[in-house]
């Protein structure tokens, strides 16, 4: 209760404090669970590294040192160098940007397209729902990675096609989740009341149904970023995604495969980076699931 009144006074103050209140709220939810706390720290570090990559990286990611190739970790090159003498640490640092870009693309497509479709299907029900859901069933029947392969085969292998393909294939699960949540929320009295006030369907969907389906959207979106990172890394590892010499982790691992007999480091560090990034989003998603969807102290934390 005291927490709530504190919130209310904060909401009255100008925008800046509202941002503070929002951040406090996020922090309260995230820190409610040790899984999400660790995950959140990993994700936050990724964002930090991606933003400050030029400052943090000791070398240019593409600077070759042909007299110092495939070097093991040393004081000069903490993660060693690759087959053209590029600093692996610097490349991994810049690779963070691709990971974050993938996260952004997937989350954007999922929320813009996936959430809208789910809302519309769940709100209008009937024929609209049937049509949308049957269409999505078709997408669901194809594994994300395979559909992505089809798209890059027909549209060409490049970073944008790979990211878009992966983004598209995560839409159906989000739509289904939002739909089922919209289906139950639209029966809530407050939605009936919103319609009783004459509000148009757009307003009812966006201002009354959507805000109440946020928890499952956040949980699924976070976990999906983890899967998308795996998929794009796998695509790049297979040479079908982000292409060398771009410093994406998957492409780096792919390029290093040839030299695995000579030295393991060029493949070990990028693959570890992938695993850690995926782990970060997975932990965050798992923890949020516990807090937002199951938590006994859900009300305390969220309200």
């Amino acid at each position, binding site marked *: 209760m005291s927490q709530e009144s504190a919130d209310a006074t904060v*909401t009255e103050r100008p925008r800046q404090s509202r941002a503070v209140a929002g951040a406090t709220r996020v922090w309260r939810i995230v820190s409610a669970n040790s899984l999400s706390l660790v995950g959140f720290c990993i994700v936050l570090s990724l964002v930090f590294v991606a933003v400050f990559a030029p400052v943090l990286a000791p070398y240019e990611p593409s600077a070759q040192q042909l007299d110092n190739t495939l070097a093991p970790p040393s004081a000069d090159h903490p993660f060693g160098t690759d087959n053209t003498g590029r600093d692996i640490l610097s490349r991994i640092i810049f690779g963070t940007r691709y990971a974050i870009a993938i996260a952004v693309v997937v989350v954007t497509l999922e929320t813009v397209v996936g959430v809208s479709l789910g809302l519309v299907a769940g709100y209008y029900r009937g024929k609209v729902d049937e049509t949308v859901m049957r269409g999505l069933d078709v997408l669901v029947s194809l594994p994300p990675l395979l559909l992505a392969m089809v798209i890059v085969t027909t549209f060409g292998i490049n970073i944008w096609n790979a990211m878009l393909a992966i983004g598209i294939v995560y839409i159906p699960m989000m739509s289904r989740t939002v739909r089922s949540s919209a289906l139950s929320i639209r029966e809530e*009295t*407050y939605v009936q009341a919103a319609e*009783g*006030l*004459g509000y148009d369907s757009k307003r009812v969907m966006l*201002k*009354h149904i959507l805000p109440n389906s946020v928890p499952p959207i956040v949980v699924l979106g976070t976990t999906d970023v983890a899967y998308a990172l795996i998929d794009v890394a796998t695509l790049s590892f297979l040479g079908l995604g982000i292409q060398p010499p771009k410093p994406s982790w998957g492409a780096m691992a792919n390029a290093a495969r040839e030299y695995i007999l000579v030295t393991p480091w060029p493949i070990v560090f990028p693959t570890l980076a992938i695993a850690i990034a995926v782990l970060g989003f997975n932990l965050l998603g798992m923890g949020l699931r516990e807090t937002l969807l199951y938590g006994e102290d859900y009300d305390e934390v969220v*309200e």
Partner: protein
Amino acid sequence: MTLLDVDGLKKHFTVDSGFLSGLLGETRTLKAVDGIDFSVDAGEAFTLVGESGCGKSTAILSALRHQQPTAGKVRFKGQDIEMYSKRALRGEAQLIYQDQQDTLNPKMSVGEAIAEAIRFHDVVPPEEVDARVDDLLERVGISPAEKYQEPSAFSGGQKQRIAIARALAVEPSLLVADEPVSGLDVSVQAQILNRLMDLQEEFGLGLVYVTHNLGIARKISDTIGVMYLGRIVEYGDVDDIFEDPQHPYTQALLSANPVPDPAVDRDRIVLEGNMPDPIDVDDRGCPFVPRCPEATAECETAEMGLKPFEGDRGHLVDCIHR
């Protein structure tokens, strides 16, 4: 001025009764509302009373196009209600629900909920919205300082009053309240009812009130319609109904739920059985036959309909023995 004029309103539901008949494509018709007439003037409080399940909610929901009626004509301010856009109609006629406390979006501050209604219906210029919200909250006894809170911060009675404030925010000319205080503490009930009556008087609203509680009906209404199995069986001024009830059902209701009034002294009439499902009702004759202490063979086949009692055009009864 007549605000709402309901004529021959029917609402039938198709129900499939069980799995086997469902397979055979057999459906049955549930006549939740089976031809009712009533009208409400500006400033008038009309109450629909009847046992739970007699069709009160369905009647008002289909009268105001929250549900599509099966048949009937409804006029609002003299114009066919079908001619109104949804937005225009909801700006004129507001509904207060039975479980009103749950009508507030849990993720929207109560102040915003009221402001949204004001803005959507263009009630006042944008810069006056805030002041209007504060004013409305004050009127229902909520401190405007609390407007930034979400509904979970309020008690049931407070939420009820906030929702009433929101319904009033659109400045409707008709307010329809469906058992708005059931489930609340008696003291809170009284508070809210008093406020509702004050507001009705202040704004000159037409009020349609729905309840199964005869005490409330008597307290709040000018006119009353007694419903049984989807029909209005008796209609009249509040005094006619409570002091001179004519229909055997009304008489039974009043004797079973005595409303304190020393001037009236009645024998206790006990109704037998329960109100049947509106699904098993015969089209012919009086639907009250199975439970009516005065039923005769004639009642089973007679042509039914509301008729003036003793030539009084304001007091109507649907019983062939009156």
